[in-house]
């Protein structure tokens, strides 16, 4: 048996807060360069950290719901950091 603390059913287990930090930093780095779509983030984080996409999505969802990240629209929909007031 595999220890459930280390490996979840679908891949590497990662704390949600930690995932949120990784996502936020990825979006932060992209600002002013190539805009990221939601699917870019899911693919990248999942590939780089071995976490299932559904977990990345859940973490991203919290960032969007809390307003730390927002959706923007420029011909397509992107995820970005909200502008400072």
């Amino acid at each position, binding site marked *: 048996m595999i220890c459930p603390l280390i490996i979840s059913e679908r891949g590497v287990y990662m704390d949600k807060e930690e995932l949120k930090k990784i996502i936020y930093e990825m979006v932060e780095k992209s600002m002013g360069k190539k805009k990221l779509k*939601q*699917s870019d983030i899911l693919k990248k984080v999942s590939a780089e950290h071995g976490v299932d996409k559904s977990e990345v999505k859940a973490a991203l969802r919290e960032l*969007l719901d809390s*307003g730390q990240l927002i*959706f*923007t*629209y420029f*011909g*397509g*929909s992107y995820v970005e950091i909200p502008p400072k007031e």
Partner: protein
Amino acid sequence: MGQKHQTPLLDELEKGAFPSFVKEIKRAAEHSEYAQDLLGQLELSYKEKVTHWKHGGIVGVRGYGAGVIGRYSDVPDKFPGVAHFHTIRVNQPAGFFYTSAALREICDIWDKYGSGLTNMHGSTGDIILLGTRTENLEPVFAELSSRGWDLGGSGSAVRTPSCCVGPGRCEWACYDTLELTYQITQRFQDELHRPMFPYKFKFKMAGCAVDCIASIARADMSIIGTWKDDIQIDQDEVRNYANSGMDIQAEIVDMCPTGCMSWDGNELTINNEDCNRCMHCIAKMTKALRPGKERGATILLGSKAPIVTGALMSWVIVPFMKMEPPYEELYDLVERIWEFWDEHGKNRERIGELIERMGFPTFIKEVGLEPHPVMVKEPRRDPFFFWSEEDIEK
């Protein structure tokens, strides 16, 4: 409130026999500053032949990435009333059935927070609320949702699913379009509100091939009712039509696109194997003919208007699927299609365009569909049959 701007060009559009949007905007302008300045800006655009709208950007309600479409005036000093003029899409009920109380509620909310101007319904199917300011978005959303309304789709998301009136009013419906539309909307809430695709994705449900919702030309996935067994014929009623002056040979038999009918002056015969369920004969002889009893839907994929590339019509990917709750077979197919799109789609590439680019054989293989002779893209083009290395016995 008198009219603030002179609008000689727009006034022309009030003349003539047809309903006029100018007349309606003027009515709204009696109590709305948005509508006043909308008239002014529109007149300027007609005069200069350029638009004065800027669009896109960062407007929305928290947590959602869809449902609000940002619009700003590029001449806000002249027309402060339309400096912000954002559109809100509200998810319409399946089949567009309302109580008058519900319609009043929407209008009252919109008079309170926006221009009072609406478009019932937009080409997506949504209730379109035209024109409000950024600071009103959260309050209007809060009020709408507290009364059970929700925003619709926009951007790179599932668009608000819509359907024909189906069994609500129509005896030809081969499946319950209203129920399926409601269930798809519930099932894909996340995909509707939080854009996650390369581009938009539209579902449209038509109960039969008459296709009152024009799904075949307007939906990435068109779900069109059909039947498997034989058209039900009441020969007495056929004779009644003939006796009351219908030329059955010319109007029915000769118009059948598959040439599968015959009429000997007494009995109408249909070779159901060749019938393509086009609905022509049934729609003409409503009392004599009805769809068969073994009903379901054909699933088609890929139509779109020209943006990145030219217009496409949907084509068949599943000839027949039972359309009854819980619809798991359908959801499963949709999710496989989205995975394929997510994997290979370029930014702003619709599913139909992706299939054109990658090839239909690749698509059906990756999505796990069986090739079938009815997967014809358009008449006079070969079905998509191809052989791969593994298929060839050496």
